[in-house]
């Protein structure tokens, strides 16, 4: 709780929060539009390193906004350690959820692609006219 701050300091924090969140949002949208090729003609980051850098920046900015909202708007910065940890530690489970489910999603896509390939595969008909397969020659079998 903001028991440590004067009223003037509290109001200053609100103004700072508004400026910070607004500025980060504008920067985020600008970078997203730049990466998608809407800002400068011929400049886009849709593949390779530039694309990964753009995605990492988006995630980093969003995490910072989340940190600011939780710690200053929701006063988490002024709560006792036990409360902070009991709220924040469980959310680290999400790190594994993200890794596991994104990998799972990638596997679904790979499997679907494989099935599509197999469906489109042209199977060559067997040559020679007679069915061959894995049968051994007729003489091999015991004829009683």
């Amino acid at each position, binding site marked *: *709780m*903001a*028991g440590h701050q004067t*009223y003037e300091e*509290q*109001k200053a*924090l*609100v103004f700072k*929060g*508004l400026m910070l*969140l*607004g500025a980060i*949002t*504008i920067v*985020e*949208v600008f970078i*997203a*539009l730049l990466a*998608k090729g*809407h800002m400068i003609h011929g400049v886009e980051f*849709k593949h390779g390193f530039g694309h990964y850098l753009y*995605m990492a920046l*988006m*995630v980093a900015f*969003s995490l910072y*906004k*989340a940190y600011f*909202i*939780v710690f200053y*708007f*929701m006063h988490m910065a*002024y*709560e*006792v350690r*036990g*409360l902070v940890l*009991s*709220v924040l530690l*469980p*959310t680290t489970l*999400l790190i594994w*959820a*993200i890794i596991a*489910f*994104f990998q*799972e*999603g*990638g*596997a*679904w*896509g790979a499997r*679907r*692609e494989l099935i599509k390939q197999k469906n489109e595969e042209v199977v060559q008909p067997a040559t020679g006219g007679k069915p061959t397969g894995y049968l051994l020659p007729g003489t091999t079998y015991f004829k009683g």
Partner: protein
Amino acid sequence: MADTSVTHAHETHDEVNDAQLWEGGTPPMRASYGKLMMWYFLVSDAFTFAGFLIAYGALRFSMPTWPEPDFVFASFPFVKAHWPLVFVTVMTFILIFSSVTMVRAVQEGHRENSRGVVFWMFLTILGGASFLGCQAYEWTTLIAAENMTVSQNPFGRHIADGVYLNADGSEAKNDDGSAKTFKNGESYLLHKHEGKFDVPTLRYTSGPYAGQTAQAEFGPKAFGALFFFITGFHGFHVFSGVLFLTIIMLNAAGGLYASRKNGYEMVEKIGLYWHFVDLVWVFVFLVFYLL
């Protein structure tokens, strides 16, 4: 139990050490029961939203193509232009403003200033209602004008370079006489014509299907379901937040919380919820619109 340790626990913040905590009488989290339970409710709600957003990621990763947000979310009220992401940025700003006014309401509550609480909460409610109005516009455009539903997504992307064909199989031409071509990864929207989707025929000129004729396909249909469920679930949080804010504002105006003499703690609790709604929007904005 001393009454000061419950209602104004934060003021004794620095004076209580661990040994004294074990003596009892001081809540270990130094927060009231209601506030603590609001935090834990928000933790559980965060997991619900995380589950939805992770499902979005998993399904997106499983598809060879996915609609581009800057193509899908480009309409703006009263303007017939392609303005990618501008409208959702406006929505984001509305939520940021309403979060800021909520902080002010909580601060005035700590000062036991009833008029301030009601004034800033009223602005917060206006922000929440404006956000809902924007979302109604966004949904209406997608459903009524662009024909997206939970089970149908007309926003697709080409998987290779190619050219559009006329009904007789000849190459379609633009108005200036050049061939009507498309590039790999280019977005398109299938339009409805007299109640039926107008699905263009095309021929690929690159990639594994080069030379083959095909029909343009619908985009991954999970996109529509995910969009309406996730933004709908968030919108429902905003809606219920507006309802609770209204009830609490009326109670504050009626002097109920002043008589409790606990620094308008109810305003603080609904404030936590309201900031959480803004927090979730940060990630909905990231996942649906920025990436």
